[in-house]
């Protein structure tokens, strides 16, 4: 773990792997370190935002380094009911050498964990995608991906909370509400949450 300076109210912890990021973010969030106001995981970093009572010496890497941890969302698995009728199923099948039915079976058979959020409110980057489905994102993003689109790109799976442009490959759609301002927390899939997709 390397700690990088980020002004008087934040510090950026950099790691070598996403697994270490997830472990550290879950650990620090659960620890409730005094003075910490935000723990923001990303691909290789965890941003710690803090107030003036925070002691940087308290920011130690979790024991066990990058060992998988029981996520703080493990108490409940969120199941996303999914219609597997995505526009890219055929393309994904062609580029993985699988049949569309195999793609659906692999995608819905896996158990995912939210590594981090970003891109837009409630957009969760899920790890746990079977490696046979790893595909680079589109060279040219779609100008319009519908809300609820269930998609994959690189080693991630995700669901679009609202309509937006997007570069991921569409496998299906869900009616689940990914973001609700009147819910606490507003995101259905905070970092650490365990997620499964169920064909409908």
């Amino acid at each position: 773990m390397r700690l990088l300076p980020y002004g008087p109210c934040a510090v950026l912890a950099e790691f070598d792997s996403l697994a270490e990021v997830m472990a550290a973010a879950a650990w620090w969030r659960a620890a409730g370190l005094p003075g910490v106001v935000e723990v923001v995981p990303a691909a290789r970093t965890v941003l710690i935002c803090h107030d003036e009572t925070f002691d940087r010496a308290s920011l130690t890497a979790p024991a066990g380094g990058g060992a998988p941890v029981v996520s703080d969302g493990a108490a409940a698995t969120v199941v996303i009911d999914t219609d597997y009728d995505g526009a890219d199923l055929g393309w994904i099948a062609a580029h993985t050498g699988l049949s569309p039915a195999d793609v659906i079976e692999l995608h819905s058979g896996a158990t995912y964990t939210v590594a981090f959020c970003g891109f837009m409110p409630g957009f969760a980057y899920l790890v746990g995608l079977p490696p046979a489905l790893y595909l680079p994102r589109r060279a040219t993003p779609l100008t319009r991906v519908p809300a609820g689109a269930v998609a994959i790109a690189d080693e991630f799976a995700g669901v679009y909370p609202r309509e937006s442009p997007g570069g991921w490959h569409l496998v299906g759609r869900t009616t689940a509400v990914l973001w609700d301002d009147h819910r606490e927390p507003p995101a259905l899939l905070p970092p650490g949450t365990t997620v499964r997709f169920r064909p409908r």
Partner: protein
Amino acid sequence: MIHVRSWGIASAVVDAGHPGRAWLGQSRGGAVDREAHALANRLVGNPPALAGFETSGALALTFDSATMVCVTGALAEVTVEHGPPVGWGQPTVLPSGARLRIGRLLEGARTYVGVRGGCELLAPDAVQVGADPGDPAAGQGAPRHPLRDVVRVWPGPRLDWFVPGTWEQLLTTEFTVGATSRVGVRLSAPPFVRSRHGELPSEGLVEGAMQVPPAGHPIIMLADHPVTGGYPVVAVADPVDLAVVAQAAAGTVLRFRPAERR
């Protein structure tokens, strides 16, 4: 009720935002110049987070009941019909039927209109005024300080992705504001030069982070910044000077100085 006759330029009903949601993908949002927003609230007797108007000009409002307002932030041409004059930083009761117009901005980038009781958008052009907060309004107006153009900065997490001398370049260069939005302020000056190339995996951003896209011209993040970004952050504005960044209008010049531990 307040009727919005014209929303004008980049106007919105804003509150103090919602810190603590970056891990869910949402930045703070709310007023870009939080100090000016809070000042407007304080002067009309509101709690600091209540919603009011933010505008970059040409906002026209009609009040259908007597309402106390206060204008802060950027100095603007303010006109009132069917009511008393509204000076900068002066809490003023507008009578029913009064029309308030925030015209052209004269100095700064964002003007705030605090409304006693706060605001809630009910329809595209109808704003409900909230219940009276009970606390007294300020007994006198606030003094208006001249706009500052110096921003204190800290080294950013990726300063070492730039050639030696970049920190000194930041501190000795005048930066012209190209454009400002709720997302950030785009600056132009001789470009920063990267020493390390290749992609940076997206990482967390804070308000005030100075991101440098490939062309070398920095962007300072404001209230609606994306929660993560993939351009290296060369420096970070001290939070005490975020209002300076928030009020930096296109064409103005900003300078940077090293911040010191308080």
